[in-house]
């Protein structure tokens, strides 16, 4: 799926689809096209939060029932619900970890230190926040498409 986006990004910039001179991730970054896996993570987290929130009696699908009463673990059998819960549990620690800014102290004792900005994280919706945390874990820059 990412290949399709890569091809579209190259065409947009007037390149051939087999052009290798240009890094596609950088190109997508410049064009503001988010990576497909980040979008998918955000969608999955969004659905999980909808199921978790249980607003107005929850979703009117079987998925709500399955989410409320997941199947007991049986060996390596991993359902969508169990995988989602495991993933969200695993990523919980990273939610605020990667939202930081560099602060440079001026003067003789100039130093660079990291400052965490929990108030900025709170502005994002929860599922976007998870997509954001996932992205920041995979990448090492501060770009956000949220």
């Amino acid at each position, binding site marked *: *799926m990412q*290949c*399709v*986006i890569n*091809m*579209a*990004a190259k*065409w*947009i*910039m*007037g390149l051939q689809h087999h052009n290798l001179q240009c890094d596609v991730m950088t190109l997508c970054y410049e*064009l*503001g*096209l988010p990576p*497909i*896996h980040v*979008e*998918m*993570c955000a*969608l*999955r*987290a*969004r*659905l999980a939060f909808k199921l978790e929130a249980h607003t107005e009696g929850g979703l009117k699908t079987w998925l709500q029932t399955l989410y409320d009463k997941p199947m007991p673990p049986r060996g390596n*059998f*991993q*359902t*969508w619900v169990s*995988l*989602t819960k495991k*993933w969200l549990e695993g990523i919980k620690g990273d939610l605020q970890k990667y939202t930081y800014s560099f602060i440079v102290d001026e003067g003789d004792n100039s130093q660079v230190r990291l400052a965490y900005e929990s108030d900025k994280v709170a502005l994002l919706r929860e599922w976007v926040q998870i997509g954001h945390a*996932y992205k920041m874990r995979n990448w090492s820059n501060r770009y956000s498409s949220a």
Partner: protein
Amino acid sequence: MLYIMEDRLIPSIKQYKYLGINVDGRLGDPRKVIPDEQSMELEFAHFQAKKGMKVIHALQPFLTDRFCPIVLKVAMARNLVYSKMLFGTELIGF
């Protein structure tokens, strides 16, 4: 399993499409890799990619047009290609 109604057998199918997802026996464990067979998630990803490919080929004259503003082309890709490919991708997520 057999389903019978008024002494008649109700035909059962092995696969059907619901909300863009091909539901079959692999739904219970969508990541399980069976030898000589794709996992459900991988098959779904290929299916979505094929759909996206169809859309960008339809948009090719527009995307490769040098006189069209890049912002417009990006907006078109985001609205037409992403939305088409991301339909039902809650299934494959992370």
